[in-house]
């Protein structure tokens, strides 16, 4: 955990030095060439490799994500392969974290009886910046962003796992249904 941040610090230092050089000449001549996220394994142990993985981004539409996920979980649309999924995992990072949680909360109310495990972690994003002046070297930056990974399962999960939440009791889910009606009210 400390190692990537150390790297980030050093690369930040170099980049700020170069930025100063650039601003001295009156322009910032850097362009982001690529942005790669590390493809780290799921922080939740014991997940199948072919599990449905919903990657929630900052600009993702909740209705699109949920339409897809509920169809695979509940089979309303009777999709082609016909098998209903027992588990789904949602991940999101940075400003997408809030949206991820909102998706999970709505899906839990819609499907009902879902067991949940949530994990928090830092995600490393590698950015390559390229100078637009010919001959000047590019910069590689490593940034860490907070991220969340949530597993929803129809089958019971290990209650000893940190971040485990049992499904809400039926009384609550009834209240949840009323809430969801309320949330359909138009907003200004």
């Amino acid at each position, binding site marked *: *955990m*400390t190692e990537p*941040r150390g790297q980030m610090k050093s690369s930040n230092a170099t980049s700020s030095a170069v930025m100063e050089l650039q601003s001295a000449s009156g322009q910032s001549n850097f362009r982001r060439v690529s942005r790669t996220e590390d493809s780290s394994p799921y922080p939740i142990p014991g997940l199948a490799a072919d599990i449905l993985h919903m990657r929630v981004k900052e600009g993702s539409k909740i209705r699109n994500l949920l339409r897809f996920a509920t169809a695979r979980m509940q089979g309303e649309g009777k999709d082609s392969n016909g098998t209903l999924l027992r588990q789904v995992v949602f991940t999101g990072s*940075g*400003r997408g*974290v*809030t949206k991820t*949680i*909102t998706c*999970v*909360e709505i899906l839990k*109310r819609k499907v009902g009886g879902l067991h*949940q495990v*949530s*994990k*928090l*972690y*830092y995600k490393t994003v590698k950015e390559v910046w390229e100078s637009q002046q010919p001959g000047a070297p590019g910069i590689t930056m490593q940034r860490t962003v*907070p991220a*969340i990974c*949530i597993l929803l399962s129809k089958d019971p999960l290990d209650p*000893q796992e*940190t*971040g*485990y*939440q049992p499904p809400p009791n039926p009384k609550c889910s009834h209240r*949840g249904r009323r*809430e969801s009606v*309320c*949330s*359909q*009210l*138009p*907003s*200004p």
Partner: protein
Amino acid sequence: MTEPRSPGMSSIQTAPVHADSTPPAVEMDPVEYTLRKRLPRKLPKRRNDVYVNMKTDFRAQLARCQKLLEGGGHREICVHGLGLAINRAINIALQLQASSQGALQLAANTSTVELVDDLEPEDPDEAGEPMTRTRNNSAIHIKVFYPDPQGP
């Protein structure tokens, strides 16, 4: 608006609602309303509960958590965040964990919080009636704790 704030006032014009799919049960005439956001429902507060907000300085809130765990002698604290403050709550929890060299563990739970808005007619002569509107917002509750040495 995703973050809770003190019941400030903001003037809005309630334009006629889209007349397409929504049922006309909550049809509103274009009277001026004042939207007042009530504070979130008061939640239980123990000594080791920290409610994170977006107004207080980040470092101050982080320092407060560190003080509770190190000086305050608590084995576990609970960091709560609502709406926009979810990100900050996660950040605080991860920072605490990183600075403890792996001694601290995190257990995150998510929930939905019901929030109430008051709609008050701007002009008392108009026929507009005071209304309330309920909406939901997501929340996170992170338990930051030293795991028991004798196992779970």
